[in-house]
């Protein structure tokens, strides 16, 4: 059945729900590249009017990708909480926006398992940035491993000490730098340049050693392919979190060399290690708009809706951390600062609405129309939105991945401006070793010496 909306004397017709959702999406280069974006500003708003009138139950009843051909669709529908859905089943997308604006955090937690990615994406398309911030801020998603992530009023930071040749001393130097700024509560996570098991083994050992010697209440991760991490676990290497990049369609996941059964196997293996003393959230996923299109696996669906479907994949494995790498993919998917900012807020909102602990890699590449000012804007908005965590890269310059993310200094900035705290266990540790005062403010002057006093032979 086609959807129609009348503007003056002109009738806009949208042949099906997928087309309607795509046309209702705030325009971005990736949807244009796919040939599914609205062709005029009026058409885009007409699609939003039309989408606002679609009942949530209709979205649930009309899978955008058929159940028979896509295991992500099957996962979404098979795990859908019908009882929780009863509370919102009678609403249209437009009603749902108003419901969310007035909902309490308890209500948001109750309906999260009833929110499919398509429902989250649909309502986000008719929301302004301030709506996305306001609702996401109310949603609370708390996870635990060696510390507690996602408490209200906190923002965690992934310490990202990458090195172009995985040099152990260079990585250790960056870790010490990050810790000295009070970063690393979300995870100390390395993107290795090499994906060999030998590299993985030495990096896992390095991280485990640093965390143990300094008794840091945080977790480690080497961001390599899930099958390599499975291999590492089988060899008895110290794996805290299992990492994998995921996407919103079966075919896109296949392009990453990953299937749902592989993720399940890795999740069970990590659970069996029982390495988290205060919680068992042991998965870490990364996502990003445009990944399905770049893998030619988008089924004519807009990139923002497909991104939300990746969160449905993440959700079933109860991850500690999930982040969208929002500006990494390049200008053919998100062209400029405006598109990156909008996408970052959408992704964060959709994840939180679905009950996923969403962080954002606030980032850009040098061929995107974006700069540090855009990143400052997005970081500030995400801080206001209660973002779970952001990245901490030395000087914002990732010398391995060749892109710019947020820095250790950026984390200090957002804490000072918005009063955001670290994960409580990590904050207590920083105070204990003398890096911060009781309020979490850095004590100046001797951070490196203090860390090396606690662990003298690091970076020897």
């Amino acid at each position, binding site marked *: 059945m086609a959807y129609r909306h009348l503007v003056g004397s002109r009738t806009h017709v949208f042949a099906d729900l997928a087309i309607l959702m795509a046309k209702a999406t705030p325009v971005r280069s990736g949807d244009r590249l796919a040939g599914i974006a609205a062709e005029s500003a009026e058409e885009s708003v007409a699609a939003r009017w039309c989408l606002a009138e679609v009942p949530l139950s209709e979205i649930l009843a009309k899978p955008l990708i058929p159940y028979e051909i896509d295991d992500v669709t099957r996962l979404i529908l098979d795990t859908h909480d019908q009882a929780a859905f009863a509370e919102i089943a009678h609403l249209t997308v437009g009603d749902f926006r108003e419901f969310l604006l007035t909902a309490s955090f308890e209500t948001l937690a109750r309906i999260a398992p009833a929110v499919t990615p398509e429902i989250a994406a649909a309502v986000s398309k008719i929301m302004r940035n301030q709506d996305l911030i306001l609702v996401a801020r109310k949603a609370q998603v708390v996870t635990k491993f060696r510390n507690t992530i996602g408490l209200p009023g906190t923002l965690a930071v992934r310490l990202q000490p990458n090195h172009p040749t995985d040099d152990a001393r260079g990585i250790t130097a960056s870790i010490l730098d990050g810790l000295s700024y009070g970063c690393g509560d979300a995870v100390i996570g390395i993107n290795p340049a090499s994906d060999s098991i030998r590299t993985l083994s030495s990096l896992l050992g390095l991280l485990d050693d640093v965390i143990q010697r300094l008794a840091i209440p945080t977790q480690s991760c080497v961001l390599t392919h899930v099958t390599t991490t499975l291999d590492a676990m089988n060899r008895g290497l110290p794996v805290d979190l299992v990492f994998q990049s995921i996407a919103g369609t079966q075919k896109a996941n296949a392009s990453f060399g990953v299937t749902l059964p592989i993720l399940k196997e890795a999740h069970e293996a990590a659970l069996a290690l029982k390495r988290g003393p205060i919680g068992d959230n042991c998965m870490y996923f990364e996502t990003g708009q445009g990944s399905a299109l770049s893998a030619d696996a988008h089924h004519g669906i807009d990139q923002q809706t497909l991104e939300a479907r990746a969160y449905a994949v993440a959700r079933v494995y109860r991850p500690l951390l999930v982040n969208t790498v929002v500006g990494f993919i390049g200008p053919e998917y998100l062209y400029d600062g405006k598109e990156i900012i909008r996408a970052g807020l959408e992704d964060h909102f959709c994840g939180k609405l679905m009950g996923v602990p969403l962080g954002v890699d606030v980032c850009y590449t040098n*061929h995107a129309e974006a700069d540090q000012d855009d990143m400052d804007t997005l970081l500030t908005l995400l801080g206001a939105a209660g973002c779970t965590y952001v990245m901490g890269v030395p000087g914002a310059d990732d010398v391995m991945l060749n892109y710019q993310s947020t820095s250790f200094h950026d984390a200090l900035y957002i804490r000072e401006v918005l009063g955001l705290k670290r994960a409580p266990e990590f904050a207590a540790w920083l105070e204990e070793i003398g890096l911060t005062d009781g309020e979490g403010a850095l004590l100046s002057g001797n951070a*490196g010496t203090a860390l090396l006093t606690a662990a003298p032979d690091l970076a020897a």
Partner: protein
Amino acid sequence: MSEDDLWKRLARLTPARIGLGRAGAGLPTREVLGFGLAHAQARDAVHTPMDAEAITTAIEALGLPVLAVASQAEDRATYLRRPDYGRRLASESRDRLTAAADGPVDLAIVVADGLSARAVHEGAAPMLAALKPLVDKAGWSLGPVIVSVQARVALGDEIGTLLKARAVAVLIGERPGLSSPDSLGLYLTFDPRPGRSDAERNCISNVRPAGLSHDLAAFKLHWLIAQAFSRGLSGVNLKDESDAALDAPPERASLPDTSV
């Protein structure tokens, strides 16, 4: 050791920007401006138009004929949004190339702006100067060197087909990193034709004064071309073992790699 000395020592262990110091929550002024300069240089590398005439003159001075072409992306903004346009020749360029094509050749060489015209301005002619004696010695026949604006790597597939080349080497400006705005990438594709995937190419990356030298890059490219011709393929199944050829006796280098 003082705290300052400690960070100076640690900073030598990594190219990452560590030990920057801080002014409250912010960066020291010198670091803000230093970062700004690095980003400005990377941006300029992306947006400065390639000077095809100057490149042509420099390459012709090496004794190589040149033909200048363009992709279907008519400007930089289109190029960045539509990677598919950058992979196809503009129709007028295609006609000219078709007319210029002679009999089959061994190797087609394409010089492409990619994402850094600066890399091409500074590196393309020196790179070809280093490569030419190796090509001459091997006796490989060449078509005209094709200089293309608004080009992606895969444009070489169409060019290679039109020139009836056994292989195409694309010298292209790489996506600039914050500390590497001048990096040239070399992509080799055996039996080029439209639709080749990236897995069917070999890449030599980071060719620039502070990275891989032109001489070493030329040596590696020559080695890969020879291997591609003798094995009839390029890509993931052709592993770059040119290092071994540098160190070891020649017969060691010619052993086919069966480990992949």
